[in-house]
């Protein structure tokens, strides 16, 4: 019996394997990964410092344990070179394997800025457990108590790292071309609240500008900004965003946009080939709009649906809205960003209730299609989720 082959061993790959196994005790599962295959949750990487966690402590199970727990064959340190969708063969650095069905869960790569300077190749990004280990080593050589960290990008990941590192006693400078942090996701009132909270935490925000070059200087780095400012840093971290990893999909001639295009069932343009997670571009509404969804909740939803489809019960991925929870303890936020197409013609309404700020986004028809709240907790989150889609 040919197996279901899963390429990747992140949250998407393992969630899918788990779900398939729940439904089918006999299915042959082969997981192929370029890394060690240890199970960890990527969201933990951006708040592991304050918890003083080493990389190894974030890996809850090794590949061997996962293989046993799921009942799967896992090939680690194996690179997939090519997918032949006609003959249903995956060609790897360890040989070629036939598949009955294939799932691509290869994730995304950190976007690298084109920076000038003789130290631009020393800019780190953290999108994998191995990156986290490297970052920790660079941050705290010789058990130094604190470091000067420059973070490029004040989006979700940049803000989470900034808050976490500042809580850990590091001196953080956060740089973003927008005039507010989290500008792409949050209402202006909440971005302002976050800015105030991060500043109060001791984080130096340099907004409305970008880094242009990173050079070696005095045993550390000199970061030059477009506005002429010069910063000294021990570590420079880039958190400007992720780009779905399309190399395999494109070489196999699968339809791709920003991510690997999948239909309502998670199917790519090739028969018996599926994709989910950070590499996928999902159908997000009934009008044919598509978007990558680089969050945990869609992974879990897609994994459940695709597992059912793989095991014989055609199931649509029901991408219900789930709030994005921003792990910035100095200003805990939860939000559902309004859909891109509604932003130009809609409006934010802000309500301040004691120390809590609630922002609701209404589209041109007056329907609530997004929100943000801080400080957030389960009850207010659920109330706002329930109000989505209603008119006021």
């Amino acid at each position, binding site marked *: 019996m040919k197996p279901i082959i899963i390429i990747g061993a992140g949250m998407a790959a393992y*969630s899918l394997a788990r779900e398939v196994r729940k439904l089918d005790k006999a299915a042959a599962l082969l997981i192929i990964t370029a890394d060690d295959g240890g199970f960890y*949750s990527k*969201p933990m990487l951006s708040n592991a410092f304050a918890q003083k966690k080493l990389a190894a402590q974030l890996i*809850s199970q090794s590949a061997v344990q996962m293989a046993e727990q799921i009942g799967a064959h896992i090939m680690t340190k194996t690179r997939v070179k090519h997918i032949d969708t006609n003959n249903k063969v995956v060609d790897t650095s360890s040989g070629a394997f036939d598949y009955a069905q294939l799932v691509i869960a290869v994730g995304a790569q950190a976007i690298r800025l084109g920076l000038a300077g003789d130290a631009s190749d020393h800019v780190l990004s953290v999108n994998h457990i191995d990156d986290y280990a490297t970052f920790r080593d660079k941050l705290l050589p010789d058990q130094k108590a604190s470091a000067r960290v420059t973070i490029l990008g004040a989006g979700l990941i940049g803000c989470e790292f900034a808050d976490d590192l500042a809580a850990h006693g590091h001196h953080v400078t956060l740089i973003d071309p927008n005039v507010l942090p989290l500008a792409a996701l949050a209402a202006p009132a909440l971005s302002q609240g976050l800015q105030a909270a991060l500043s109060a935490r001791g984080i130096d925000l340099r907004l409305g500008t970008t880094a242009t070059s990173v050079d070696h200087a005095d045993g550390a780095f000199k970061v030059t900004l477009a506005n002429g400012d010069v910063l000294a840093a021990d570590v420079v971290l880039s958190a400007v965003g992720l780009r779905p990893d399309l190399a395999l999909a494109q070489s196999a001639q699968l339809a791709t946009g920003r991510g690997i295009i999948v239909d309502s069932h998670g199917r790519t343009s090739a028969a018996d080939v599926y994709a989910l997670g950070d590499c996928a571009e999902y159908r997000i509404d009934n009008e044919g709009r598509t978007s990558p969804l680089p969050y945990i909740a869609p992974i879990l939803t897609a994994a459940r649906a695709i597992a059912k489809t793989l095991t014989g019960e055609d199931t649509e991925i029901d991408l219900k809205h789930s*709030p994005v*929870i921003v792990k910035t303890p100095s200003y805990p936020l939860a939000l559902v960003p309004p859909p891109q197409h509604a932003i130009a013609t809609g409006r934010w309404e802000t309500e301040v209730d004691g120390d809590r700020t609630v922002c609701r986004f209404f589209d041109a028809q007056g329907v609530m299609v997004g929100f943000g709240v801080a400080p957030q907790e*389960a009850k207010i989150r*659920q109330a706002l989720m329930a109000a989505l889609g209603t008119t006021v």
Partner: protein
Amino acid sequence: MKTYQCIVCGLIYDEATGWPADGIAAGTKWEDVPADWECPDCGVAKADFEMVEI
């Protein structure tokens, strides 16, 4: 009494302790935790917890 861990953020639910802040009394068995209960830290569903031996 068993413990369950959120696979996403690592939060631990201990049956012995329950989760009083969400009205789940100490000693509440996992199967008796409401299906719509979410991880207090990261908001994923009850289904995304796994039993762990600690």
